[in-house]
């Protein structure tokens, strides 16, 4: 049985309808997002299910997970805080911001808090360089932006997650 296909039949159909019928493979990226929403990360099982839906070998779907940074093949924190420390943001204090944020959370970049709630990562330019420091928060559901941040405002957000995990 193909869990994704059964549970999300109409959504998958709508996704496939965006592309020509003989180019179903184009739906691979949207389906990887769907798998991530369902399973939290792209599991082996998800690769097989997507490969069945699209008639593409699972290894080729797996390669996409390795190539694109927003797909994960292992679980992380429920909230991934992704701080931009690219050049324009670094010129406006982003590296110090990241360091202090990690200190406050008691973890290093790339690590997850012991309760499994938060992973902190540093990422490349997010197209918000005039509003540094900024980060995005990636969850299984999607991505939201948080701009013009301070350590205080970021920790305030963290506390809302902690009190409502």
């Amino acid at each position, binding site marked *: 049985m193909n869990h994704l296909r059964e549970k999300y039949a109409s959504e998958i159909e709508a996704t496939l309808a965006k592309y020509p019928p003989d180019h179903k493979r184009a739906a691979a990226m949207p389906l990887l997002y769907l798998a991530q929403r369902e399973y939290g990360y792209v599991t082996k099982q998800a690769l097989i299910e997507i490969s069945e839906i699209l008639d593409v070998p699972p290894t080729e779907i797996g390669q996409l997970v390795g190539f694109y940074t*927003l797909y994960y093949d292992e679980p992380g924190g429920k909230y991934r805080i992704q701080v931009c420390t690219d050049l324009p943001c670094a010129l406006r204090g982003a590296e110090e911001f990241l360091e202090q944020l990690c200190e406050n959370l008691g973890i290093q970049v790339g690590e997850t808090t012991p309760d499994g709630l938060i992973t902190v990562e540093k990422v490349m330019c997010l197209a918000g*360089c*005039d509003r540094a420091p900024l980060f995005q928060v990636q969850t299984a559901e999607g991505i939201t932006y948080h701009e013009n941040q301070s350590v205080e405002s970021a920790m305030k957000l963290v506390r809302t997650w902690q009190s409502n995990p």
Partner: protein
Amino acid sequence: MKRPYLLLRHRDIPDLNDLTVYRQNGGFEAFRKAVTSLQPQEVVEIVKASGLRGRGGAGFPTGLKWSFIDNKNWPHYVVANADESEPGTFKDREIMEGNPFQFLEGLMIASYAVQANVAYVYLRGEFWQLAHQLDRRIQQLHNAGLLGDRLFGTDYSLRIFTHLGAGAYICGEETALLESLEGKLGQPRLRPPFPPAVGLFGKPTIVNNVETLANVPLIIERGADWYRSFGTEKSPGVKIFCLSGRVNRPGNYELPLGTTFRELIFEHGKGILGGKQIKAIMAAGASSALIVADERALDTPMDYESVPALGAQLGSASIIVIDETVSMDWLIRKTIHFFQHESCGKCTPCREGTYWMKHIIDRIHRGQANQNDVELLYDVASQIRGKCLCALGEFSTEAVLSALERFPQDFAARVAQQEPAL
């Protein structure tokens, strides 16, 4: 008197991202005019005559690109490039948030001009919220009869779909973008053939940047001559300059092409943070050569001809301002790490070259290098040039080579502090 905005019109007109408001302000009249009273070829000619050049970085004439579409092979596609990932670039996002319908209308006119019945908007994965907003707006256009079958009672039909990338700078390169849209690894294609001959799903395809497309409704509505009244002879029109780095007021500034760096940085951007001295300018984001910010450079007009005369490029006009507090070895370490991370790995000079540059600059940064390493870095960067499949390879060397050539003292100071490595 202040000039009204042409692209960032939402700054003049509240709630312009509401379809009703957009239509009250003349929205979709240009699209209606094109579909009901102009031949596709006439639309192409008007855009050609306007002199509009691509705003995604390369500055290629837009109407000319459209005229290259292969009319012997069907169907045709138009793809809007909303990947916006060059460090220092944040204009397409503001357009799509604040003035999304003008962008969509431009995409629709472009589609009509090359007789595409399906268009895609390829957004970087980080623009997840934005993609969902666009989906709702596209649905509104369907409901309003502006998208769908037999538009305005003609034979022309059009659908638009969004497609989310998933974090890869290289997917902004148009052929990598098309690969990604086909569900493959985002790696550039060998060219020729170019997309107007063989593009998406093997069919003739036009790829245009979001900002490029946002210009199109105004050009169709008010004409090529009107558009040419802005900007310079060879770089007509207005441009959104993304100002970032060590300035007091970073942000997007819509100004005529040909505005000087000085006006952008010191009038609009209100000068350098903390009253410090300006040191250098990057005009095309992290892909830029470093321009020494002397009086002559500051008085240079920002257009597609004048910036190259300074040994740099205008690119997508992502102006990163560097002041005296910044050392160039620190700066190129940031850009090298970026390109090493973003190299798609398809060709050896770029993949290996960026890896070696990273290795060397990290050693310099750790204080374990001498002058030979600085020369080695120059050598490795020079070796990458001219040998790569796509422009990312060259981009990775621009800041490095120009920093070493134009700011040697920063590196000399860095290695002088150190014991020679054994």
